[in-house]
């Protein structure tokens, strides 16, 4: 189980007057993700989703609060946690000079997958994701959709327990997006925990077990999509989100 408790993240940035100022990307985030669930992190651009997911993936360090994977934290068990994690964002870049096979083999090596297992696993993943036609092509020469499939394959080689997907469908065409959504569903069926951030509310409504709505670094609502719709008396998550923001502004 993934447990996030009172996580805050502060950045120091330089303003137009060249003075340093504090900026809280995430203010006080707490939630839990049970095994075998898909948690949707929803919010507009700049809400703090990417910062939150980067902290969960161990790329950023929280200013306050704790992140625990099955009782382990990054300070003491970084390598152990990362062995069970896969992080994929819409901006994730992969090595252009390698072939798809070389990249996947390199990832297997990094995760400590034994050689005889690695070859089998790569072949299996390539078949499942229909990558055989470009398995030995240089990544730099692949299309955006093919590249995103390679990225998914990269996340699968070590069979992780947790997936952290940040705007993974952003900028992709409808077919490539569907490949990622199918992958998420399949992995959930295999008992994996998936944190999935997006600003496409309809997408989240369809696949998430639970949704966490973030606005300006704060959680404004969390629950199942059905419960959120019921509480906000709306028919979709987009309307629900706007209603919640309106309510927040009125309160102020």
């Amino acid at each position, binding site marked *: 189980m993934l447990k996030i408790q009172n996580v805050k993240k502060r950045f120091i940035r330089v303003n137009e007057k060249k003075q340093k100022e504090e900026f809280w990307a995430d203010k006080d985030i707490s939630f839990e993700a049970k095994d075998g669930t898909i948690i949707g992190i929803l919010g507009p651009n700049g809400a703090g989703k990417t910062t939150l997911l980067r902290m969960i993936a161990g*790329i950023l360090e929280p200013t306050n609060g704790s992140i625990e994977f099955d009782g382990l934290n990054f300070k003491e068990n970084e390598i152990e946690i990362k062995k069970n994690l896969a992080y994929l964002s819409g901006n*994730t870049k992969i090595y*252009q*000079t*390698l072939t798809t096979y*070389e990249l996947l083999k390199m990832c297997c*090596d*990094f*995760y400590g997958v034994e050689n005889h297992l690695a070859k089998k696993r790569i072949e299996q993943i390539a078949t499942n994701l229909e990558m055989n036609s470009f398995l030995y092509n240089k990544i730099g020469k692949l299309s955006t959709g093919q590249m995103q499939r390679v990225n998914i394959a*990269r996340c699968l080689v070590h069979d992780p327990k947790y997936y952290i997907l940040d705007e993974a469908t952003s900028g992709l065409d409808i077919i490539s997006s569907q490949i990622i959504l199918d992958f998420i569903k399949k992995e959930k069926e295999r008992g994996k925990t998936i944190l999935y951030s997006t600003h496409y509310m309809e997408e989240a409504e369809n696949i998430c077990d639970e949704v966490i709505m973030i606005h300006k670094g704060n959680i404004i609502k969390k629950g199942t999509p059905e419960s959120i719709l019921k509480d906000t008396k709306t028919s979709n998550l987009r309307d629900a989100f706007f209603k919640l923001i309106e309510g927040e502004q009125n309160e102020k």
Partner: protein
Amino acid sequence: MKNNLKNIFKKEIREMFRDKKSLSMMLIIPLMIPLLVLGMSALFEMQLNKPIEQYNKIGFAYELSEVEQNILKEMNIDYQIKTLEELEESYKRNEINLYVKKINNTYELHGNDKESTTFAKNLIDSYFNVYKEYLQQEYLNKNNINPTDILQIINVENKIVEEETYFANYITNYAFLFIVMAITVSATYPATDSTAGEKERGTLETLLTFPIRSKDIILGKFLSVSLSSIITGFISLILTIISLILAGKMFKIYEGIDLMLPPTSLLFASIVILCYSFLISGLCISIASRQKSFKEAQSALTPLTFISFFPGMIAFMINLETTPVLSCVPFLNFTLLFTDITNNNANILNIILMLISTFIVITLVLTIIIKQYKSENVLFKS
């Protein structure tokens, strides 16, 4: 997972050998050495063996005695006797290389800073020495004094290394200094590409999500950059030796000099190349990994290129000699030891001190950068 240092090294080497720029830095820079050695040798030889016909036309604005004319003929000086105005015109038209004016007992040499005038001036200096000696002998003879008693009252024997050897040593030292520079250039590009370049391409974020310790990432990158520098260093050393042997056969300035390094000197040269490659790679990695972009990293590494070269050049200029203390000074020690190696007087103590000081510097630099190499610092600190 325990092998992640090996995996990072493998990844970096694969990227490096597939990148045309890294490869060309590694392999093409050493090719400059034969050009430098052969070019400098040809230049110096041209200077030393300049045909006398190119600078022996000397004008005299006064009447020359028979004795003077004989000395001039003996010295193969093509002399002309004209008025001062005529000589000035001849000099302007490049018909003569220098002209001499006489006022009482003073002889004035006229000309400007042309190369042929400089050579002609050396020639006429020799002529006046001979003529002066003749006049002194004649004076002493007239006064019944044995000229030998006065003119050779002391004997001076010239044991100074001949000018030809000086030029040969100069070229050899510069060739070895160029090895240092080639190694620096070879380390700079892959170090920039594997740190700031990887950050700019966005793949570093991906790399940092893998279960790899910062230590393995830095050491893997350090070892791959070191390998590139070592390859350049040894190619440069081989090309230096080959081009010196070739130059030795082609140019007279190397006559009487054994240009083949003995096995011990080759061993010492290899140790210096290895140490310098590791040091410069460590420094390049530590500087470039702190930069946000490839361009920033290149700018940050430019001073290092100069630092690697200038101490050695200054050491040549002031004829600095290797001491145990100087053997511990990074950058300076490598050039000084190379000079000792080419002169076959390298001291084992100085080599050991250089090894120890290099090891300490590399360890310090890498320890600092490994401690700071947390994903947040590396990716987002500005």
